[in-house]
């Protein structure tokens, strides 16, 4: 009886948290079907914002910019960060600690300080624009990759690589076929973490972007006073549904779960 009551309370609690997490999202989804431009008046059900979304070049270019930045910065961070995790791991203790301390700086520092510091430095040698935003995103993304890959480097079995070399595999082949696969779990989660952080960033982009380029975040911020275009609600509903589907598929794949479990034990 007590056990049943406990189970009930814990379910109820989960439900309340879900309600809290999804309340604003429900509001946004409802607004995407609202036939009135006003945020407070319900003007009837419509699909028209989904149609006009297709023809809105401003939103399309901001969306493109957001994804381009996220992909490029996550990819560069993945390459530099994975190499860095391997390198830092084999450093002497003092250097190792120094590098991990520097790696923690962008994560511990307030975004606003990171953004301003980068802006003040970058304007000394190049104009603000796509390049400066990309540099900024790579800078705050590399630490996420390092922190995701590092546990895998710790538990990696280097003998496999050495055995491959002894059996005649070339150094490059041994590296890509015997060493990297052992790190792949950390690399994948590092890449996606970096991708997400880049997509979600507003503050650092805001200070390093200069005039002329916009990501979704900075475009939305600029529109707050004028009123958000309903097409934005339609777009975020589409993104939400897409991510939901992707996550559901990923979650229902038994193989993925198995590796997740193993990874956890390995950490």
């Amino acid at each position: 009886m007590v056990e049943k009551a406990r189970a009930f309370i814990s379910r109820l609690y989960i439900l309340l948290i879900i309600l809290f997490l999804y309340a604003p999202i429900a509001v946004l989804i409802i607004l995407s079907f609202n036939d009135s431009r006003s945020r407070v008046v319900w003007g009837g059900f419509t699909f028209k914002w989904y149609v006009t979304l297709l023809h809105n070049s401003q939103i399309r270019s901001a969306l493109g910019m957001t994804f381009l930045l996220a992909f490029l910065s996550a990819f560069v961070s993945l390459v530099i960060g994975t190499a860095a995790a391997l390198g830092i791991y084999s450093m002497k203790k003092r250097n190792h600690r120094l590098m991990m301390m520097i790696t923690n700086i962008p994560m511990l520092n307030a975004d606003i300080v990171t953004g301003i510091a980068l802006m003040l430095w970058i304007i000394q040698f190049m104009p603000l624009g796509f390049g400066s935003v990309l540099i900024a995103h790579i800078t705050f993304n590399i630490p996420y990759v390092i922190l995701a890959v590092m546990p895998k480097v710790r538990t990696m079995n280097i003998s496999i690589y050495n055995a491959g070399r002894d059996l005649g595999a070339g150094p490059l082949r041994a590296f890509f076929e015997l060493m990297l696969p052992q790190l792949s779990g950390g690399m994948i989660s590092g890449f996606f973490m970096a991708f997400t952080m880049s997509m979600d960033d507003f503050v650092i982009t805001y200070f390093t972007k200069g005039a002329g380029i916009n990501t979704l975040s900075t475009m939305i911020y600029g529109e707050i006073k004028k009123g958000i275009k309903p097409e934005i609600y339609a777009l975020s509903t589409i993104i939400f549904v897409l991510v939901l589907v992707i996550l559901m598929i990923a979650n229902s794949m038994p193989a993925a779960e198995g590796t997740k479990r193993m990874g956890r034990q390995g950490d």
Partner: protein
Amino acid sequence: MDKVLGKRSALAGPYVIWAVGFTVIPLVVIIKYAVFDRSGAFTLANILSIFAPVHLKALIFSLEIALGCTLVCILLAYPLVLAISRLKFARSGMMLVILILPMWMNFILKLLAWQMILSSNGVLNLIIRSLGFAEFDISNTPLSIMIGVIYEYFPYMVLPIYDAVTAIDEDVIEAARDLGAKKATVFWRIVFPLSLPGLMSGITMVFVPSMTSFVTADILGGGKLQLVGNIIEQEFIHSMNWNLGAGLSVALMIFVLISMTFTINKDEREEEEAW
């Protein structure tokens, strides 16, 4: 390649260059801006202006918001983590998906949605009125800023704690139960201590951003309630006083560093144990 891998630390080369070029040097630059005035003379006035009444008020307000939000996040997160870990494996995976999914919605849009929910003619008051209670207006109050901040960073508290709790060996808990430990004892003597690394990284990920998130205060505070982030943003974007803005940023940085020292120390000790 073997030589490189033999001296594998060389692999960190590109990162070392990047970190010096875009993490260390920018900090030096911002400090340089902070310690000079517009005419180029050395001064500590920019940094010390954090103690000017308006700025100090914003700093204290930021601190209150950050401490309050971090505390509420911790208090909300533990029951959730325990509740999720009671679920069967497949369901708990689904629960994590549910938890992570809102993070993909643009956070400014979510804040605007909260603004609509909390405003005097918003959804919350509609429900309250229909239940027959007197309506209340919490828009543009510290409470509404806190709701926004907690909403934004709650998952960052839950996920590391969840990771730490699920990593606990079931056998340890079983053993404690077999030896007669009550549920509360199991939690306070086993689960909680072993979850501390997760809690520490949760605190780091929630405390700092909640102190400085100027967009949240902008949207949910109605522009009247200022966090230290709002003041810095204004100095840069509107007043164009970069030296003062940099000075306040450096002061904020020093402040954050001091308040985080405890957490970092904890992390480092673990790092050493891991070696």
